[in-house]
């Protein structure tokens, strides 16, 4: 790698780290579900939400679970290690992107695209979330980069297939990325010929990997259809993209539309059209995976792979700009504008990332820790599957339509819009009514300013009144008011 390339890549990574530092660790509640599974795997309980339960597939991506479990096994504290891992995946994704770009584009064009990806909010949010979205982005860009540069030898084809198979373990629909990209690579072959020597082994490796993974799933969970408590709730809707994201976050759909428009223009304008088609195809396949679930991360950051893949054709758009004596000024203008706009949008996402962090820091984590101190072996029925069960280490059942209410857990915790007025969804209301004669209100703690979203805790009637020393330690939550029934 030339010295200028090293400096340019270091600048891109520095920009990315700066944006990540500005956003800060986010701690979405969903990430703690994976940590709980990972600690259970590390402790030898298998992929189960509660130790001793039948395995369930509520963790999202198997590869991310495996990495977190390995970290837990070697004694690394999970929330912090997962956060570092996702940050490292983000950095690695940028490095792979850079390598792939430099094979076909000028330094300036590569700098524009990498800078755009580095400063983009979704990738930074993904890297600071402790979730597997940054890993997905890394694998998706690896598939693209390896296939784009694959030639007569087999190594890159097979490496791409391995990356594609690993991506398939991160979510069912992400398994589409490699086959789609391979098909495009074959159809849009350069010079009209495709090195057949690579395609067949790559397909075989990918198929073997996917079949092995699903065979393991079938054996472990007894079904190929994921039963995922808490994680796979609902599909993304038009409103999520263009009106408002869940939990009162501004929409970010237009950002992806911009990328799509620019990517299409880049493909149309490119002299390296095959590369453009490859990136676009992989992006569309990854996008389908994204739309399959609702994304509670700001900026739909679960789609960080899309940002990188759609940015790639921009390099070709920059390349078709006529070169003249003002080209340097034009380059500077384009780079600066894109970077400033991207950082601006990343800082928009910071506003909403802060709300999630505040909720975790002030309510969910302290509440879970308080519960653990109160009773070390409690049981919980709740609709918030992440941080509270993780920190409390209580045996937890999640509220669902078919949840058995005959077994009475120690505490029932439901989300309400209001600390003092219980305004709940239908399912929570049903549970609250069903348990009304067996439970008393213990406390209510706010987790979000907007709509007064709060957690109302009910304790079973036969549990003795809590002592003053226990209740005085009850966390305050968001704001200054906590409701304690004494």
């Amino acid at each position, binding site marked *: 790698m030339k010295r200028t390339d090293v400096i340019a890549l270091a600048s891109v990574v520095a920009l990315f780290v700066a944006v990540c530092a500005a956003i800060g660790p986010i701690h979405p509640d969903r990430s703690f579900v994976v940590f709980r599974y990972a600690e259970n795997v590390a402790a030898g309980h298998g992929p189960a939400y509660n130790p001793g339960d039948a395995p369930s597939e509520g963790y999202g991506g198997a590869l991310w679970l495996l990495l977190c479990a390995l970290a837990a096994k070697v004694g690394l504290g999970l929330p912090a290690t997962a956060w570092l891992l996702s940050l490292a995946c983000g950095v690695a994704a940028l490095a792979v992107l850079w390598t792939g770009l430099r094979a076909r584009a000028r330094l300036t064009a590569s700098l524009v695209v990498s800078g755009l990806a580095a400063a983009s909010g979704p990738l930074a949010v993904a890297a600071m979330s402790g979730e597997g979205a940054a890993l997905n982005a890394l694998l998706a860009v690896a598939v693209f980069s390896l296939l784009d540069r694959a030639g007569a030898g087999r190594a890159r084809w097979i490496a791409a297939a391995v990356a594609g198979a690993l991506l398939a373990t991160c979510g069912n629909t992400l398994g589409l990325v490699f086959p789609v990209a391979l098909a495009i690579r074959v159809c849009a072959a350069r010079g009209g010929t495709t090195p057949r020597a690579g395609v067949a082994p790559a397909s075989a490796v990918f198929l073997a990997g996917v079949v092995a993974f699903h065979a393991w799933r079938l054996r472990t969970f007894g079904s190929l259809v994921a039963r995922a408590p808490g994680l796979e709730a609902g599909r993304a809707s038009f409103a999520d993209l263009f009106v408002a994201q869940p939990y009162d976050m501004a929409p970010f759909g237009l950002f992806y539309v911009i990328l799509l428009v620019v990517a*299409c223009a880049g493909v149309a304008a490119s002299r390296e059209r095959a590369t453009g088609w490859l990136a676009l195809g992989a992006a569309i396949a990854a996008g389908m995976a994204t739309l399959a679930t609702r994304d509670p991360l700001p900026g739909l950051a679960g789609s960080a792979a899309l940002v990188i893949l759609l940015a790639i054709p921009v390099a070709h758009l920059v390349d078709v700009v006529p070169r003249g004596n003002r080209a340097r000024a034009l380059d500077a203008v384009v780079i600066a504008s894109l970077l400033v706009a991207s950082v601006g949008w990343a800082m928009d996402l910071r506003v909403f990332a802060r709300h999630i962090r505040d909720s975790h820091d002030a309510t969910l984590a302290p509440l879970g820790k308080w519960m653990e101190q109160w009773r070390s072996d409690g049981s919980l029925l709740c609709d918030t599957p992440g941080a509270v069960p993780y920190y409390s280490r209580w045996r937890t059942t999640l509220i669902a339509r078919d949840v058995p209410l005959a077994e009475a857990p120690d505490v029932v915790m439901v989300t309400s819009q209001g600390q003092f007025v219980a305004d709940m969804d239908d399912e929570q209301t049903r549970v609250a009514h069903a348990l009304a004669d067996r439970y008393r209100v213990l406390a209510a703690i706010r987790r979000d300013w*907007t*709509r007064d979203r709060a957690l109302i805790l009910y304790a079973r009637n036969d549990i003795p009144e809590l002592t003053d020393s226990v209740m005085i330690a009850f966390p305050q939550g968001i704001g200054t008011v906590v409701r304690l029934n004494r």
Partner: protein
Amino acid sequence: MTAKSRRRPAPRADARPAPRPPASSPVALVIAAIVFLTCAAYVMPFIPDDSFISFRYAEHLADGHGLTFNIGEEPVEAYSNLLWIVVCAALYGAGLDLPAVTPYAGILLGLAALYVLWALCRRRAPLWTQQLLPLLAFASCGPFIIYAVSGMETALFAFLLLLVVKCSEDFVDAPGWRPLAALATAGFLVSLTRPEGVVVLPAALAFVAWESRREEAFRRGLRSLAIAAAVFGVATMAYHAWRVSYFGEWLPTPFLSKGAEGSSLVTGWYKNLHRYFVNLLYFAPPQGYLFAAMLGLGIEGVRAARAAGVRAPGDRIALILGLLLFAVYVNFVDWMPGMRYHAPLAAILVVPMSQLHRLLPVGAWESASAAHLRRFAALAAALLLAGGVNLSHLRHATAKMTESARLCYMPLAEWMRATMPPGSLLAMGDVGMVPYYSGLRTLDIHPESLTDTYIAQRAFSADYVMTKRPHVIALSVRGVYSARMDPLHWELYKSEAFRIEYGFVGTVRNQWYEDRAYWIFVRSDLGLSEAQLRALPEGIGKQRRTRFDL
């Protein structure tokens, strides 16, 4: 290569002036106008609390009560937008409802600004494709759009600023009395629209003089500029003499009570930088990046024109005015979503940006190939969508303020109108919507009071408020159940006289964030019925306290 030869060449004395615009087709203007109208419709309704202060002044002016906040009281200069108040008074005098009509007046002024901008753009860019991109950047600029429909003076100020830029350029290109008179008039109107506008015309005249120094007719031009400056000076002095004699104060109350936060300018700048680039509000995105990008592109536009040997003085005067006004605004707190004071800067920064097309060879613009058109369409779409991202985020933030108005301010005002005896005095820190719709005389008890000269000059005191004996007091509190309020208001709340004379009615929440709520107290001798007390609105959400809870 020597340092001297590396230096960027100054524009040649014989540099070509920007060519007079041919009768180009208004395609770009029409497209940009449609985009602007669509964006405006998307963010409506958004009328923040401050707009209603202007409406109240305008209605009193039109009704013959002069520039007073409370009818029958001494005039007080609690506004900073005289010309807009006069415009509103004219609209009100014509029988129009101000909260309903001013957003549309703002849209019309925004379209007028767009027209002036188009006139400037077509001097710089003969092709409609070249004109379209800067016009789209303006037509989809979130901060400008939300304040164009806000019932505030933003669109008028932006329109007049663009007129100053255009008239300055007209005068440099063809010195004469007509463009000079237009420039002086526009400059004077700018100074009447916003107090900081007083720097605009002197800066424009100084620039024009500097720009024309090598012209043959410089001496003659200089004389006419000096006359224009003298006329402006006399008119400004006359206006201020009237102002001081009318209000009896040298400075408007906002200048007495507001300013940079913190004990020093540096502290204020630091806090403002945080607002620009990190966190504007708990729920509003920072806008510094947008303005920084526009400034950077504007500077590059000036450089591009200079490198092409094109003389376009409007670019530089727009840039200078932008920087000058920014140097003023950085000292003041601009906390509203989209930054209301900075919003008009978007209009003038687009002027130099319209030179950026020179970075591409002419052939790239003139090509009519399908590939070229596709690329252009993608660029225009990306620009438009980029504006859309920011606009959608700003709409998300302004929707919260609109929710406050709908669920808190208007019902509270309605309750006061129905409950309080005519002529009652309301004491409140936010003196926009509630005083306007309740129609009550109002004492502004904000520690940085806008409409009360005593508090603005001498600071808030509980004794002062108690001597006024307001019938109803609305204290702004962070909390429904816990009373976190301004220490000065706490002093009033804890005073014995207040406890004896006033009874707590209930809370009306106006924001989710921090449970911001008004705690309503009514003078005990009013003897409100239980039905009247129970009619107090809930505000936002379901958390509230009433006296019946106590």
